[in-house]
């Protein structure tokens, strides 16, 4: 499918999902006008609200990107959640332990450590896949549980701050990511996210490493034929993917929570899968998709707050967007123009 058709399809999917959402709001006895007014207001209405949207966007950029990198290399990494927890944990520990370092260096090293931890955590399933053929979907799911529980254990055993909550002590001021807009919680994390999107895009488009990653993802037999070490690239793809997911955790710790708390993630790792699907596994596409999801999330909260409409409705809308993106055939039935010459009929 061509690029433009993809974009058109995604936009249609969003419009359609909002339309179905409107029907649901109507059925549940609320005013559609009011609901969507507050949805829009909550997402873009004031600079604070917009900052809120960007805040929600940030972790999804990382987790979406992590899934997309896997997809590009033919891997379905759904272990983002576990990788995110390791990233968050190691980042927090470094930020707490190495306070003698100057601020920027401390932040840099803490994030780097978090990325490494996420990458390492993802490397295991990659290794198992390369050496034994164990399917990464199974192993990464298992590694989610292990990762979340292992960090919880380590926290409780060695790093727990006093008090009833399972959390570390607060980070010192200098270990926190600086605010991007004052009096909001939006930090430099989103800039780091955009930089990582750029880097991954360049990696995939302009380097031989990225080329080989994609070859392995597209056709493993051709990869072997061309002399690409497929096992090596499977592991490498998982490491890069896990490192990016680790950054999601690290930036949340340094930017938002300012400590590590057990069970802090509402499932960013899993939402990343949906973001990657909507972004068609392209880095810049992921950025846009994360932004949309961030807006729905921020707007949904305003909707609940001001119009008393459950924000769960926006989760349904998110789900519908994905449904329509993943099943473009739905549109081809509704709008036959799109169908023409779909796909590639290979012959001979």
């Amino acid at each position: 499918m061509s690029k433009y058709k993809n974009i058109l399809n995604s936009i249609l999917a969003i419009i359609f999902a909002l339309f179905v959402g409107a029907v649901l709001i109507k059925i549940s006895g609320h005013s559609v006008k009011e609901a969507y007014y507050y949805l829009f207001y909550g997402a873009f209405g004031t600079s604070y609200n917009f900052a809120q949207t960007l805040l929600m966007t940030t972790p999804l950029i990382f987790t979406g990107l992590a899934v997309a990198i896997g997809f590009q290399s033919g891997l379905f990494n759904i272990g983002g959640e576990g990788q995110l927890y390791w990233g968050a944990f190691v980042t927090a520990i470094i930020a707490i332990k190495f306070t003698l370092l100057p601020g920027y260096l401390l932040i840099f090293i803490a994030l780097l450590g978090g990325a490494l931890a996420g990458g390492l955590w993802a490397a295991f399933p990659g290794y198992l896949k390369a050496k034994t053929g164990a399917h990464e979907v199974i192993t990464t799911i298992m590694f989610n549980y292990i990762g979340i529980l292992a960090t919880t254990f380590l926290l409780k055993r060695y790093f727990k701050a006093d008090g009833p909550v399972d959390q570390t002590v607060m980070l010192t001021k200098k270990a926190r990511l600086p605010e991007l807009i004052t009096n909001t919680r939006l930090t430099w994390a989103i800039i780091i996210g955009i930089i990582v999107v750029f880097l991954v895009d360049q990696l995939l488009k302009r380097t031989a490493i990225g080329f080989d990653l994609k070859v392995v993802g597209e056709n493993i037999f051709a990869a072997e034929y061309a002399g690409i070490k497929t096992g090596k690239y499977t592991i490498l793809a998982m490491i890069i993917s896990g490192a990016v997911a680790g950054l999601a955790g690290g930036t949340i710790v340094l930017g938002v929570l300012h400590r590590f708390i057990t069970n802090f993630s509402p499932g960013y790792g899993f939402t990343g899968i949906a973001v990657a699907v909507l972004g068609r596994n392209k880095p810049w596409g992921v950025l846009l998709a994360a932004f949309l999801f961030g807006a729905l999330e921020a707007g949904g909260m305003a909707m609940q707050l001001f119009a008393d409409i459950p924000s769960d409705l926006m989760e349904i809308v998110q789900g519908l967007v994905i449904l329509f993106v993943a099943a473009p055939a739905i549109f081809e039935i509704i709008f036959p123009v799109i169908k023409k010459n779909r796909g590639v009929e290979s012959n001979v």
Partner: protein
Amino acid sequence: MKAIELKKITKKFGNTYANNKIDFSVQQGEIHCLLGENGAGKSTLVKIIFGLYQKDSGEIKINDQIVKLKGPADAIARKVGMIHQHFMLVDSLTITENIIAGAEPSSKGFINYREAERKVRDLSEQYNLQVKVDSLVGEISVGEQQRVEILKALYRNAEILILDEPTAVLTPQETKELFNVLEQLKKSGKTIIFITHKLKETMQVADRVSVLRDGKKVGTVETSQTNPAELARMMVGREVLLKVNRTQNNPGEKVLEISNLNYKNKKSGLSLEDINFSIQAGEILGIAGVEGNGQLELEEVIAGLRSFQQGNIELNSKIINNFSVKERRKNGLAHIPSDRLKRGLIQNFNLANNLVLGSEWDSPYAYYSILNYNEINKFKDEIVKEFDLRYTKNNSIAGELSGGNQQKLIIGRELSRETNFILAAQPTRGVDVGAIEYIHKLLIEMRNNGKAILLISAELDELRSLSDHLLVIYEGKIVARGSTDKFTEEELGLLMAGHYQQGGENV
């Protein structure tokens, strides 16, 4: 009566016409062959008849009725059946299940398997299409799979059968059997449209032939009124040399030597046993044999895609037994793989990326890891020009190329690499006569320039006209060897079929 009549059929992809105002008609009960160069628009035309592509303009009549085909279902309803070259079968289902899928005989919601098997058996007897109705499709030969595809169409009452390059994957024996079936079908009144690149076959089975070139129809002729040379001229638009000119060679140093090679394919049970041969610079060594006698295994063992149990492979004076694919390529290997869709290209990559595949780390295409698309695109333009690659869109992906152009892309990539050993497996499969002429010329040229070439092919003519020496392989063993002139075509046929003297030195 006319079974099919097309008027001014036009189909564009991007800005190029795949079909340009084509008038084409097929009489009921005839075998009509469709010829044309790679990319001429043959597959596109038959896909339009089968409802897989929608025409941009023009008129389709089936049995004298104007029809609108929105999809294959409409075509099937009008008793049109199509046998694709890449079979659409489910490996894990039985032959019967594959044939009836989607049109199961049932009562009260339960499939009546006994009834189904009986029907399939009847059909297979009626047309002499032998299949074992209850074997799994994944376990049968390519020839049998094709018979299953034909039965599938017949089961849906097809009266008009379209076959897109059915013989490209068949052994000579299977081809002969297929032609018998086609004759049988014709006798019972069916109409057949048949695409091929092999002029000999056309002359043998077709009643009439239509030739396409650049999306336009050049003409339709009766087979009895024409000859291969004329057909070739119609296809290409100029005289084509159907035979290459192989001069005396002067072989140089040994480039490849294989000694006591033993390999067992644990999946299929086939073994390569005690393979010994060597190729010198400036020599083409041909491997003759019916497909499935160890050619693929030999190819992949040499290329480094399978590891073998015993023996030695020496390339350019280095033992490469434990070399990776990459190291082998560095040490002089170029490889045209027999399975182009599986190994040779990446369907979703564009031409430039497919052409740089395997050289993506080498200068000038990359500097350390950074790709230089200026150089890569320059290389692409050169290959496109040199090999006359035809495509419709500027950024076409390999999957959109016609079959023959996909092959040219791979050949262009491999032959332009600086190596002195070429492993060429089925290099002209699915390629039109003009391109075959070009590829043959090129291989001979490479040989004359001192390269060593191992040619694995299912085409006897190709082997006989290109090779300096021939080996005959049968069930994984080399059963005869000698210089090409020493074999007659009949002898080769017998040897390939396993008629050789045990232990004796054949030729």
